[in-house]
């Protein structure tokens, strides 16, 4: 490992410790790392968007490909800048209107396909036979139905409805407990990676100065 690389890794190790120091309490080192990364991230993101989005989608199409229809979105994008002025900021609503209209139109079919139809299909694709597979499909259906009852807004959750919605929220809570429990492993693995990085840095330091 070269000296320059060692210094850069040293910076990375120092910043790693700055962030971890937050666990003890807020302190100047954390605040330093926090502000530094906010500036760096914004700068990085700006240049990334510039090179990988602005240049190919806006600049090249208008200046090189002769696709002049892209003047419309470019104008809409520039209209967002009217927000710098109090008097003209309403103009930006036109851009926002296109932005939200287009996104909402797309999201209806997307949500219905991925979160409704696919889930429905998965729920009713197994025959309810008298073996293990059949029993668990049956229990899944009972679980889905009772959890859906929990989401009824316009009926009081009383009487039999109350019982079913109670089962529903129990099912949901089991799902949440499982989700939480399953995630612990991945989170620990993330921390292990950071510890291994720090350990590796200490080793390379001793190797550099000791050997």
């Amino acid at each position, binding site marked *: 490992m070269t000296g320059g690389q060692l210094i850069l890794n040293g910076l990375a190790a120092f910043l790693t410790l700055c962030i971890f120091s937050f666990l003890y309490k807020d302190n100047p080192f954390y605040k330093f790392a926090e502000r530094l990364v906010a500036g760096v991230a914004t700068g990085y993101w700006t*240049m990334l968007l510039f090179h990988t989005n602005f240049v190919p989608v806006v600049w090249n199409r208008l200046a090189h490909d002769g696709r002049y229809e892209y003047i419309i979105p470019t104008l809409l994008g520039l209209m967002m800048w009217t927000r710098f002025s109090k008097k003209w900021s309403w103009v930006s609503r036109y851009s926002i209107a296109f932005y939200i209209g287009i996104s909402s139109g797309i999201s209806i079919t997307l949500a219905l396909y991925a979160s409704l139809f696919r889930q429905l299909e998965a729920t009713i694709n197994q025959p309810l036979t008298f073996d293990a597979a059949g029993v668990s499909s049956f229990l899944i259906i009972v679980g889905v139905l009772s959890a859906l009852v929990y989401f009824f807004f316009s009926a009081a959750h009383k009487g039999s409805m109350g019982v079913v919605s109670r089962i529903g929220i129990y099912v*949901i809570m089991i799902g949440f407990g499982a989700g939480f429990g399953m995630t612990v492993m991945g989170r620990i693995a993330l921390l292990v990676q950071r510890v291994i990085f720090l350990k590796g840095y200490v080793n390379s330091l001793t190797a550099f100065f000791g050997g």
Partner: protein
Amino acid sequence: MKREIPLMIVTVTGIIMFFQYFVPSNFSEDVFTFLQDWVMVIGILSLPLGIWSLVKANVNKLKVSDERFYSAVLLLGFLVMVISGWMPDWRSKGVHLAIFQSVLIPIQSTIFSLLAFFVASAAYRAFRARSVLATILLLTALIIMFRFIPLGPISTVNNWLVEKILMVPNMAAKRAIAMGIALGATATAIKIILGIERTYMGRD
């Protein structure tokens, strides 16, 4: 002019994009790609709004003695990344890449790894058998976490239980929540397109 026309634009573009989904023709595909690009271009060209907001706030803070150093660090970090981003080969060598690798990446992964600690502290506080619901949450999470602990024959039973929990109630809960989200999101989108939901548009 200031509010009605934008709301009409939302309705018209929303309806166009909805019906586009059902039309596989070339024209329809082209409309889809083009309008998606609109969203992207508006997003890219709005970035100066964000940068202005950030720079303004931090330039103001330069006047506050407690904040001066930190805001200077932020502005400096931003400027160095933007200037170095103009260099040729900015992505494969030089200052831009060095800062990306030794500042951005380590800080990002360290913040992400804080989750290991927070998972534990959240579990300590939340997983108390205060109510039936809390108890269910607690027991399920415990059963799942016990899959790592070697307990001889108990582990066999526990592993069986883990498999069943993941396969049945966990699956049912996820599906029901997803279906609810589909209905809620669709209803909200329909309200937006019909102009019933319009708070995001503001008013004069």
